[in-house]
């Protein structure tokens, strides 16, 4: 329930920001949307389905490693995307004096 609420709030806030015109707001919106997806990934795990992936040892309790690996990868990709969007915003700011690309001709 907690996770569902977090995902919902993050996705709602992210969607609001992505719909704004400024590139910086859009970038922040994608950061939040990315977080929503990452939280969803983390909670999608479950060790009961496949057992512990360590061969030849008995482990009592363990976390499901796959979603963690997924999330780490997704965070890195999200980082790259954010950097690119911000670079785009800087470029627009320098050329137009504003990060809203559709604003002026």
């Amino acid at each position, binding site marked *: 329930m907690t996770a569902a609420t977090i995902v919902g709030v993050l996705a709602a806030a992210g969607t609001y920001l*992505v719909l704004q015109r400024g*590139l910086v707001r*859009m970038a922040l919106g*994608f950061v939040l*949307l*990315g977080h*929503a*997806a*990452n939280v*969803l*990934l983390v*909670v*999608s*795990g*479950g060790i009961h*389905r*496949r057992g512990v*992936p360590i*061969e030849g040892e008995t482990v009592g309790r363990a976390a499901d490693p*796959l*979603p963690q690996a*997924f999330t780490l*990868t*997704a965070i890195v*990709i999200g980082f*790259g*995307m954010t950097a*690119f*969007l911000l670079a*785009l915003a800087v*470029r*627009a700011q320098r*050329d*137009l004096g504003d990060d809203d*690309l*559709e604003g002026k001709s």
Partner: protein
Amino acid sequence: MSWLLVLPIALPLAATAATIVARGRRRAQRLVSVGCALVVLAGAVALVWATRDGEVLATGMGGWPARFRITLVADPFTALMLTVSALMVTVCALFAAAREEDEEPYLHPLVQVLFAGACGAYLTADIFDLFVFIEVALIASYVLLTLGGSLRRLRAGAVYVATNLLASTAFLAGVALLYGTAGTVNFAELAGRARTSGEVAVAGTFILAALAVKGGLVPVHGWLPRSYPAASPAVTALFSGLLTKMGVYAMFRVYCTVFQGETTLRTPLLLVASLTMLLGVLGAVGRERMRDILSFHMVSQVGYLVMALGISGIAGLSAGIFFMLQYIVVKTSLFLCSGAIETFEGTGALSELGAVARRRPVLAVAFGVSAFSLAGVPPLSGFFAKLALLQAAFGADDYAVAGVAVGVSFLTLFSMVKIWNGVFWGDPPAERQRTTAAPTRGRAAAVVAPAVALAAVGAAVGLGAELLWTLSAQAAALLVDPAAYIEAVLR
């Protein structure tokens, strides 16, 4: 054989590093870039040969157990897509070099990253890696699109990046839902799971919807004709050959494995396919620049591919795979033709062009062959693709969508004739000032050659359709009955 599976990913990445080191030395960059694409092309052809009887090659990374490792796998579908992609990269890199677009020192490195991402997406055996490789290709494409940084490109870039990031986030959420419901992201383990579990079906539909954005299907196609024509000609041609097709390939893969034999999505897919075919071709009618028109046709043609996916079965999927392979060649050839014209005439607007056929007869023939192939005129490759598709549609009693497909073919022909009349025939417009100096003979030949070569490949595919058809049918058989695929991946 396993190195053949690693080669199409590792070599472009190595070439990326090499071309970055060699920036500023254009000859070296060109040599590495084209050489890498050629070696991968040879490797891909070897893979086609190795999988021609329906064998599936797989290799696991890092020695982990089958269910935890990253697996690369090549079935006939993968091998064919790799071959066509490598061919497109070779030709587009040569075209970029001929146009001197590689003045930009990072053009070749970015092309190689895009190439590596596309190859990875074709080779991977699980959905999360599919996401990663698609992102690798997309990141390169974001930068390629905005290279140069004119206002038009920045605007197009913002639309393109926003749409694709949104789709990627949705895709990632879909992967999370899929893992949460099915407990795996491996294609082999996911085979047919949507049949037994409604939750998995919902997660799979979510992923398909995200991929539909990347493929440019109606009603989520608006970004494609707004952004593609803004890139430089060589980059547009490369995108047309590699990017949207990657989304469609992923749709084929996900739908055929996860939804194996489950037909709930059949009607929505056929509906979306019909709308995509129709709205894409109608959108092209009002356009005035060659690459704008061609971009709308790209939307329209993706509709044919999804139609094949909706029909499914061996007949539908063979037609779809054959269609996709020949279409990539034909469409890239058309974009290269329009890029060549823009190089010579300094514009792609129909109203400012005319009588190009008199000055560039070879280019006119290349364009004509590819345009008629796109419209589906026999004996060119597009005709056989559409014939097979219509036969599959009639075989499955989908008369409505078949009717739409035929109607759209006529409209496509109309559009191509419009370009032909505007650009190649008529009188040369008198008042326009030449913005570019007339290229030397050698350079002109280098600019025209890639388009001509691809048009020739397209025509050869039409005349020798039997060979490609056999391979496509083999690929489709494995999608319909993935027993060999599953066995190879989980071994």
